[in-house]
């Protein structure tokens, strides 16, 4: 996972001990993915085992300092140079839920879509408030927030798209699945009128 490369990238700047690394990681990512110090030390010992970092003694207060090795630097360079793989699509609960909603009869799909849209907008409002408060010096954190914002926005756009498709299917109603859908969307309309 990216904690390993993230910590390595931080160590490339200067040798650090565990707590320092955790603080540096969190200040860059705005505590979006909080680390506990145990995770940091576990990761460090694996990095040491793999020859990517090495012990650099202790500071005055007895903290064990780690520094990056040449192999570690190569790994960091490699990480930055390689695009993050899309891999197989993550199992997306929302996509599965909507697929089920249009499959199972009697579900008010538009209501499901709207409930999700409201919830996602609420999260988006929260991210945006954090963004409004972030200063120019918080560039790293601000970009992480932007990533969350664009993700949430993509979800809302997809929901808009689903709703438009459902409305069209309700008008046209061709395949059996869509016909069944037609019925429940019409029913939802009737209830609202």
């Amino acid at each position: 996972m990216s904690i390993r490369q993230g910590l390595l990238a931080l160590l490339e700047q200067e040798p650090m001990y565990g707590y320092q690394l955790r603080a540096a990681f969190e200040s860059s990512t705005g505590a979006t993915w909080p680390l506990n110090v145990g995770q940091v030390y576990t990761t460090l010992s694996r990095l040491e085992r793999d020859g990517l970092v090495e012990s650099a003694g202790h500071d005055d207060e007895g903290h064990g300092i780690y520094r990056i090795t040449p192999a570690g630097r190569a790994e960091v360079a490699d990480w930055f140079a390689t695009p993050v793989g899309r891999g197989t699509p993550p199992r997306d609960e929302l996509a599965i839920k909507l697929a089920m909603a249009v499959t199972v009869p009697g579900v008010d799909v538009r209501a499901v879509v709207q409930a999700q849209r409201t919830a996602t907008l609420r999260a988006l409002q929260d991210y945006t408030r954090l963004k409004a408060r972030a200063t120019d010096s918080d560039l790293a954190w601000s970009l992480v927030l932007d990533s969350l914002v664009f993700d949430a926005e993509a979800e809302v756009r997809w929901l808009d798209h689903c709703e438009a498709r459902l409305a069209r299917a309700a008008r046209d109603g061709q395949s059996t699945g869509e016909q069944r859908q037609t019925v429940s969307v019409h029913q939802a309309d009737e209830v609202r009128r």
Partner: protein
Amino acid sequence: MSAVLEIADLTRVHGKGEAAVTALRGVTLTVTAGEMVAVMGPSGSGKSTLLTCAGGLDTPTSGTVTVEGTDLGSLSRKQLAALRRRSVGYIFQELNLIPALTAAENVSLPRELDGDGHREARALALVALEEVGIAELADRFPDDMSGGQQQRVAIARAIVGDRRLVLADEPTGALDTDTGEQVLRLLRARCDAGAAGVLVTHEARHAAWADRVVFLRDGLMVDETGPAATADSLLHGIRR
């Protein structure tokens, strides 16, 4: 906080008989000073109709629109026009800049119509243009500006002077994401300074700058996000 805009049970039917289209069916919405509300919904759901009624540019079939305590339905045409110029800033879906006037003249026009002297109106226009970041384009004509720059002139026109109610219909249409965000920050700042704002947008990212997001569908308000989270709950929420 005091209500700047109160819309009560607003219904608007366009046209008559067979061709009648009900654009809004009984919408109720209150926007207080300092509050920004975003309106989202599919094309044709009544968003623009809601905004034109709120700004006194269109007349409800039934229901009332009250701006700063004044029922718009009780005003004469002339009184309504005066209230619009004085209290309401409007950014249209189409920009409606006047091609024969410079940026500064477009922005100062509503003030001059309202009886401000030319100099005073120009000074206010320059402040507004400065606020949207294009002070240096004050003496250019709309045709000699990019779409995004024209958009900012339209926004300057809507905020010039001290408008208490700012209504914006897709104000970020022609802008790239970063410039669009600047526009939203600007509207947000206006509302934080005490104006009431209503923003119609298709972009969730922009709606998220609002305190509240309401959703229209087929002329009905179907849902809204609740009141704003507190600052302390924000980081907690993100750590889900």
